[in-house]
């Protein structure tokens, strides 16, 4: 890491008593055991892309990072000052994306990501977090979505998208707040704001598969940056909005767009953030990769063999879809339908490396691009080694990060989402085709 000072929100007066109370309240059997039995063997260092990408700086091993943040907070019983928390900021937000790869490489399976998350929430309690993440959290608190978008605006965007595609496809609709749908489709707020075409693409694919789906007017934002900012209360509210809307609409399942951390949030951490004692989401959560897998395997969407991609393709396993989501094989099955020349990265699947855009650093803004590009060099070299020209990334953060990496590391690749490829390769069913007379 360079010596640049990275900006974060300015701390309020640090309150050691409050920190101590938080540490005490979170001092679970796991935290106690992890902090105590770490034997400092250093095996975790090699597993970490941040360590690998920064000239194997020994201060970047996962064990060093938790020891000098959360470990130090416990050691000092919360008696820390603003300068210490400011140093923690750099470790917690710039040097760890909570990808959980080190836990697999730790003889004791120490869950470093959980400890980093706890340390982030402690910093947050003292007013220290990334500025952008604080803004997004505030938007979530007020509006239920990261962009502070009112429901009418989402509905307008959906209507606009329906109009956009009606010249090319027949019968595409975006049903809003329909009761009893099979899928309540939730999206990343970047879609309505920056890539509304993604919503149109989803609608086209649903129509082609004759799906019973709906877009909720509230609780549509499946992402959860408060979770990365360290605000557990708003993070809980964020998932509750989605769960409760799905229940209210009587939706059978919650469907998540091509986004990684949204799946981690709603499927795995959300139930705990929202305070459900059994750790299960109250409504089944399905990721878009699983949906596409089922559509293709069941033949509900068919691919035109003549349109299959011939350029070499590789797949970015988003940490929160593959290792932390369990969907690596489904993604490869989908690709086998779409592309002729698939080249896997090494390592891959549950052992993939984070692209360097996870854990909230991507939305933290351009100030944090230099460390992202440095840590991401591991991913850049992995991609280069495949010789692929197309990188499929079913996650917005991976998508943007790999685009940046392509520029910074001169990779000659194009990043695509599954939806974009599907639109180019699928056979448009008869009932959707518009007969254009000459």
């Amino acid at each position, binding site marked *: 890491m360079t010596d640049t000072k990275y900006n974060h929100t300015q701390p309020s007066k640090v309150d050691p008593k409050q920190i101590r109370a938080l540490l005490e309240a979170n001092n679970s*059997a796991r935290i106690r055991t992890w902090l105590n*039995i770490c034997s400092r063997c250093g095996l975790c260092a*090699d597993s970490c892309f941040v360590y690998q990408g920064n000239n194997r700086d020994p201060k970047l091993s996962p064990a*060093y990072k938790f020891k000098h943040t959360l470990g130090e907070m416990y050691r000092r019983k919360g008696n820390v000052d603003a300068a210490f928390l400011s140093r923690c900021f750099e470790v917690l937000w710039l040097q760890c994306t909570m990808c959980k790869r080190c836990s697999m490489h730790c003889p004791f*399976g120490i869950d470093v990501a959980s400890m980093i998350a706890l340390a982030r929430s402690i910093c947050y309690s003292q007013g220290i977090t990334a500025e952008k993440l604080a803004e997004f959290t505030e938007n979530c608190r007020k509006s239920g979505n990261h962009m502070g978008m009112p429901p009418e605006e989402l509905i307008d965007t959906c209507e606009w998208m329906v109009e956009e595609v009606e010249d090319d496809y027949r019968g595409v609709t975006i049903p809003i707040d329909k009761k009893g749908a099979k899928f309540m489709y939730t999206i990343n707020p970047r879609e309505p704001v920056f890539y509304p075409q993604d919503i149109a693409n989803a609608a086209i694919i649903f129509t082609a598969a004759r799906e019973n789906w709906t877009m909720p007017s509230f609780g549509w934002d499946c992402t959860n940056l408060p979770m990365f900012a360290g605000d557990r209360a708003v993070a809980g509210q964020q998932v509750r909005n989605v769960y409760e809307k799905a229940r209210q609409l009587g939706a059978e399942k919650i469907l998540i767009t091509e986004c990684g951390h949204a799946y981690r949030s709603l499927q795995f951490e959300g139930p705990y953030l929202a305070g459900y004692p059994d750790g299960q989401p109250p409504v089944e959560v399905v990721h878009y990769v699983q949906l596409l897998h089922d559509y293709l395997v069941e033949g509900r969407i068919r691919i035109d063999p003549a349109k299959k991609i011939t350029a070499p393709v590789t797949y970015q396993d988003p940490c929160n879809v593959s290792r932390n989501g369990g969907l690596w094989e489904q993604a490869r099955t989908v690709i086998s339908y779409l592309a002729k020349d698939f080249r896997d990265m090494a390592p891959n699947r549950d052992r993939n490396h984070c692209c360097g855009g996870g854990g909230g650093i991507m939305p933290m803004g351009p100030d944090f691009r230099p460390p992202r590009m440095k840590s991401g060099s591991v991913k850049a070299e992995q991609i280069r080694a495949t010789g692929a020209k197309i990188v499929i990334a079913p996650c917005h953060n991976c998508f943007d990060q790999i685009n940046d990496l392509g520029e910074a590391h001169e990779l000659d690749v194009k990043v695509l989402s599954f939806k974009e490829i599907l639109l180019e390769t699928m056979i448009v069913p008869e009932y959707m085709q518009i007969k254009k007379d000459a």
Partner: protein
Amino acid sequence: MYHFLTGPALWIVFAVFIGGLMTRLAFLIGLSRERDRVFYNHADLTWGFKSIFYWIIPWGSDAMRRQPVFAFMVFLLHIALLAVPLFLNAHNLLWHEAFGISLPSLPDTVADGLTVALIGAGIFLLVRRIVRPEVRILTSTWDYTLLILTLLPFVTGLCAYHQWGDYPTMLLLHILSGQVLLILIPFTKLGHMLLFFFTRAFIGFEMGGRRKARSW
């Protein structure tokens, strides 16, 4: 002195060792029922077992295959650490004398070889701690101390067996260092002799039980 160390002192040591480990475990289990719901919610025997299994067979995990010599040394150390004290002929004679029961015994030459191997492995770990920057930076004085304290009963035992140095002194040092080590186990990172199984099982539940991902 010898009689005190092998008499009342030994009882105290065993009580602290076993009692300490059990108390620590009971405390953690009690605490976990309240604060670690995630451990119980996703408990999955198969994945918990796999998570442990791949880490207790040599080179079973990706991380061990990346540092194969280190992994080998760690195995050597742990196998000898358990096998020599439990199955040493001389120890078994003491068990037999005291309780009339004993465990199967290792031939003395094997025990001797294992002890030398353990000391060698221990020195390797010590040197590795100093040589590898990512390990050195994590290592505290206490980590070095614990490693030396772990080796001490074996070094003194070896000397006593071979009658190197003054035998009675060596024997006393052997007994004393062994007792110190046993007492330290429940209160230090050496508690991993028991806690390893729980933390490993947990990550097995978390990665495998919930996500079908390998945690090794």
